[in-house]
């Protein structure tokens, strides 16, 4: 008998808030976190907008009470902050008391520091301590160490769907009895590397991103970290802990179409959603809200919109929250999982900001205002380069 997967804690840091509550307040008061870039030196600063967290690395280190001699990069700092909050919110005091794991995800990893010191390491031995911090796994090990966690630790990197897969793996491990509880999520800092990378693909907007709008010009990059604590229902029975929501469905497929672009009909997205419905044993029309991937690139929104039109008889209410946060890459699915749980808890759909004109090709329009409505099941999509498509379904406790 598979165990049920309960969400008992959440922690988040994004450009719209340093806590779950702050993020919620921003979402319902339509307060976007998109701004001009401040913390990174790049010649493209004036051509782009970003979802930047206006806290320096030094301030983060202080918030975390780290010793002076630490080797955390920004990705690790954001991750440790959000992971710690999630553990506190789940009321965990002894982290190793049960079989507890950490499944993190990142695409940037320590690149934000590597790019600063690259080619200067030889002249500056004082920077060399950061060389090992470049590895993706290093950030997860640091987060685990910061939490005092000893156990299953791994890291997933499937581009912009990474955190969805971390949640999926965590849920599978709980269901099948490999862990009693697991901290799952993702973290990515802004970096010059990704700014330039997305620039070469010509999918960065020079203004505020407009998901699912006919005249959308591309995405805004963002930075964030979020983690959820998942626990098996067996463990919960013993602790009488409050359950925030359940992870009930998930699906993972590959579009196998192109290195970066999504297929015209959104085959990968369609397959991921289909699997998620099967896993959750619900029908598509039981979904009350979709937190779409909705990056606001011409390609993503069309492909995702087509996939939704294919799988739903009538597409449910949906919105992209990327106009609030920017596209936070590996962390995107984690912060959107937090927003999905908030939608369930508050029976609230968050607005898709900046939307004006429906897409020519499709007959669907996102919600542009805060909507109060009964919500029992939320579907969240996340897609990445390399055709990685993931869908999660969260259900009311």
């Amino acid at each position, binding site marked *: 008998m598979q165990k049920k997967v309960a969400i008992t804690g959440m922690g988040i840091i994004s450009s719209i808030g340093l806590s779950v509550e702050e993020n919620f307040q921003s979402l319902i008061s339509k307060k976007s976190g998109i701004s001009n870039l401040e913390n990174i030196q790049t010649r493209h600063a004036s051509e782009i907008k970003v979802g930047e967290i206006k806290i320096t690395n030094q301030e983060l280190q202080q918030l975390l009470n780290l010793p002076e001699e630490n080797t955390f990069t920004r990705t690790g700092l954001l991750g440790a902050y959000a992971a710690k909050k999630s553990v506190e919110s789940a009321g965990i005091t002894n982290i190793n008391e049960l079989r507890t794991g950490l499944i993190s995800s990142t695409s940037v990893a320590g690149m934000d520091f590597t790019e600063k010191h690259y*080619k200067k390491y030889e002249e500056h031995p004082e920077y060399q301590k950061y060389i090992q911090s470049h590895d993706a796994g290093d950030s997860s090990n640091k987060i685990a160490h910061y939490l005092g966690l000893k156990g299953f630790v*791994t890291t997933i*990197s*499937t581009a912009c769907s990474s955190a969805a897969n971390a949640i999926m793996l965590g849920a599978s491990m709980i269901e099948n009895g490999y862990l009693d509880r697991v901290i799952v999520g993702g973290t990515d800092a802004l970096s010059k590397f990704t700014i330039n990378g997305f620039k070469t693909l010509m999918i960065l907007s020079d203004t505020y991103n407009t998901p699912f709008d006919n005249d959308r010009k591309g995405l805004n990059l963002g930075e964030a970290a979020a983690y959820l604590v998942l626990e098996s229902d067996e463990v919960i029975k013993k602790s009488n802990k409050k359950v925030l929501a359940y992870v009930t469905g998930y699906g993972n497929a*590959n579009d196998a179409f192109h290195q970066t672009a999504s297929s015209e009909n959104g085959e990968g997205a369609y397959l991921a959603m289909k699997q998620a419905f099967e896993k959750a044993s619900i029908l598509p029309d039981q979904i009350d809200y979709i937190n779409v991937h909705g990056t606001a690139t011409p390609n993503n929104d069309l492909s995702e919109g087509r996939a939704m039109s294919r799988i739903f008889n009538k597409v449910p209410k949906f919105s992209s929250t990327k106009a609030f946060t920017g596209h936070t890459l590996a962390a995107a699915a984690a912060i959107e999982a937090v927003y999905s749980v908030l939608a369930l808890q508050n029976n609230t759909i968050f607005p898709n900001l900046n939307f004006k004109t429906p897409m020519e090709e499709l007959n669907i329009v996102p919600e542009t205002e805060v909507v109060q409505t009964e919500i029992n099941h939320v579907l969240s999509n996340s897609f990445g380069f390399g*055709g990685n498509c993931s869908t999660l379904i969260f259900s009311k406790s």
Partner: protein
Amino acid sequence: MKNCYINGIGNVSIQSVDFDLFKSEAAGIQILNKAQQPSYKDLIAPAMSRRMAKGVKMGIYAANNALFNAKMVDPQAVIVGTGLGCIEDSEKFLDAIIENDEQFLTPTAFIQSTHNTVAAQIALHLQCKAYNFTYVNGANSFESALFDAFMQLKHFNKENILIGGVDEIAPYTFSMYEMIGKVKQSGEEVNFKNPQTKGIALAEGATFFALSNNKTNNSYAEVLDVMLFNAFKDDETTEINTFLNKNNLSVTDLDVVFFGVNADAHQQEFYNRINTVFNEIPQGYYQHISGSYDTASAFGLKVAAEIIQKQALPKSVQYNNIEPTKIEKVLMINQFNNTDFSFVLLQSC
């Protein structure tokens, strides 16, 4: 409960393309060891290969051979572990950012630099729309992929899964490793049995496996259990015994134990400590053949699977002088710098 069999293996390593553990003499290890690249022409169309990183080509080649070896055509998952992904392209893109002051940058290197590019290109190559994951957790990146596949085969409705580990060497990364002593300094001896100096002998490669819950004539071994963790909760001996007991085994039931020893005197201390647990068990090692890199343990699994299938432990991979009488139960232990630990338990089939 369904089983997890290793039915096919494909590999690119620093050894020659036709290297055979039971027949060939392995080329000696240097401080920097580049993989012997096979010809990719028959496998990858020039229009595709022109933009492919070395890691992608090695991955596709090894994946294809693993599937061919197992006569598997439609894996229901592609799961890859890699420490750094296509790090050479990450370097190229960073170099270009610095040299051209963020101008005239082209997308190809950036696209390849995303960690999931190998798994993605395999999916594209095989036109495989199934489950697709990439793990990036240092020295147990590959074991993460193996664990996921193991769980998928046991509990999900999947019969066939393709997994692998791949990593490549890049020039500046190597020189950074020299600066921090992660690799051996020029002139230092590479000694796996009695290392005197710190640092590893860096290498690269790709090793892929076709896993299935169906046993075939080509099955090498069965994966009994996989465990990965960042740190020992209890003392090392207790945790090893707990892992074995969970599988109804004790240390004396083991026929061979493989260590991921990597010629680093500092890291040798861990293996010396656990050696006391296994001092009466035949021991094996493999990084003197593969060289050391984050996913070298995938090569280790290939060696272990092959010795189980052949029921022979060649002298060249014996770490102590104890000969096995049979090879039924094999335990593999790996780590890097006292973290990214993994246990993999295999049995003959």
